[in-house]
């Protein structure tokens, strides 16, 4: 019973998105008698709702931001766990502190900085912001994963003549692969779903990420973009993260536990 009530919103949205306005007035709750894909078409097309374009923007923003934040954080975590770094612990505590900062409060300076380097209203600007913000979380998780790698492994690699770069790429990265996957999927979900900075830092539909696109759609209800179209747009927008979740469910659960329970 619980599951059913929990899933009603999904059922409602899916059936709604498959019905025409006419069918809605006569058959609101039933399974669509004559499913139409008009709503999805209007949601997708750039002339109307434009979710197709927004989705591409979202990927252009999310993928580089995830790669940058995960890779840089991996380097940093390596430095602070395995390299005898004097400031290692200090950096780690700064990162924990960073996790507690409500990032929304950074928005005015960020807006100002991006404006002055002409990256306001650009995907590159969003990549910069999201990859920087992601570092605290990624370092927090990756540091814990890397800490569990035994030091003896590195010692023997050093004796065999590996330099630190080789050690990083040949030993550390492969051994902390679970951690890398966990932070990658979490970063992807966070950044893809982010709305606040998207709204504040973009101004026209050529660069809108999909969350902003949906928010704008929701705000301007026109004759062509009625709410069944909004429902379709919302569904399209949620496909990537749901697919990611279903494919990597195991890692999601593990990540939540690693992030919350370990510390």
């Amino acid at each position: 019973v619980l599951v059913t009530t929990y899933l009603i919103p999904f059922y409602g949205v899916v059936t709604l998105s498959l019905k025409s306005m006419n069918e809605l007035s006569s058959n609101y709750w039933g399974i669509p008698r004559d499913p139409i894909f008009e709503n999805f078409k209007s949601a997708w097309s750039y002339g109307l709702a434009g979710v197709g374009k927004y989705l591409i923007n979202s990927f252009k923003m999310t993928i580089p931001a995830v790669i940058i934040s995960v890779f840089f954080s991996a380097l940093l975590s390596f430095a602070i766990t395995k390299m005898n770094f004097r400031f290692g612990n200090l950096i780690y505590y700064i990162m924990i502190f960073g996790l507690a900062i409500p990032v929304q409060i950074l928005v005015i300076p960020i807006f100002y900085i991006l404006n002055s380097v002409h990256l306001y209203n650009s995907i590159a600007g969003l990549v910069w912001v999201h990859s920087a913000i992601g570092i605290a979380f990624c370092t927090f998780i990756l540091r814990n994963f890397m800490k569990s790698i035994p030091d003896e492994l590195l010692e023997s690699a050093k004796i065999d003549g590996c330099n630190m770069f080789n050690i990083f790429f040949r030993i550390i990265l492969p051994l902390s692969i679970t951690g890398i996957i966990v932070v990658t999927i979490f970063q992807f979900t966070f950044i893809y779903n982010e709305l606040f900075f998207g709204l504040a830092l973009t101004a026209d539909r050529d660069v809108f990420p999909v969350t902003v696109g949906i928010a704008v759609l929701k705000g301007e209800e026109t004759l062509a973009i009625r709410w069944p179209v909004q429902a379709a747009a919302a569904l399209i927008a949620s496909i990537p993260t749901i697919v990611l979740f279903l494919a990597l469910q195991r890692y999601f659960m593990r990540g939540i536990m690693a992030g919350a329970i370990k510390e």
Partner: protein
Amino acid sequence: VVTLKRKRKLDLNPIWFSAPALILYASMVVYPLIFTIFISFFDWRGVGYERKYVGISNYIEVFKDPVTWIALKNNVIWMVVLLVIPTILGFFIAILLEKSVRGEWFFKGAFYIPGVISLATTGVIFSLIFRFRHGFISEFLDFLKLDFLKVDFLGSTTLAVFATIAGAVWQQTGFNMVLFIAGIRGINVEVLEASYIDGANSTGTVRYIVLPLLTPVISIVVIFNLLVALKSFDLVILMTRGGPFSSTQVLALLMYQTAFGKQLFGPSAVLGILIFILCACFGIFYVRQLQKLERG
């Protein structure tokens, strides 16, 4: 001498590994954080305008504004609701799922999927649920021939807040459930078996054995929910934009609107600092709790 030289060349300084991340982090987190505090003492009406030092008058202005207090009150309502409902629901679902094994992954997925979709999407879905004309609830009441019960949730100054929170409850429950499942898995099976042997029934086991052992997880869940409540923004801007008559306003949205609607950067920074201080209080409380638990 030769070997020494070679060794130095190979042993890279940790600075080179940490510099990219640290520079990036400083540019978009550390520097803006300091800058926000700086702005809060200035009168600044948008990029391209001059900044004028005004002391603490931004702070006075913000605390005099009744809307700030409405937003604060709503954030408290958010916190109370999120503190109670998803925590309890998540706990019971976790207990139920851990008992019955069949189809467990399907149920877990079903509860967790709302947690991976964006709050923007959830906002659209919950607007469709609560809207007056052809909303799910309205139509359902029509269907039951109870149309006299129909309420315009999103247009009501008392109910709209709860409509916006509903989406967060829907999302947060699955996340809490996963945390509880992790916690329950961590409990030693032998402890549970011992309690059964001693004649405890299952309610008793849950009440006296599982709950106390889960205290650390519970405190984590609670803190997470409180932080979510303090940062709430997406659902409110999607569903009501803070209206009607600011009745659903929350601090983060007010901050956003003050900065990008009214171009009042100073007061907006003050609101940001207010959110920060509130979050920091819970953060400190959280660390204290953890330390207490570790000590015994």
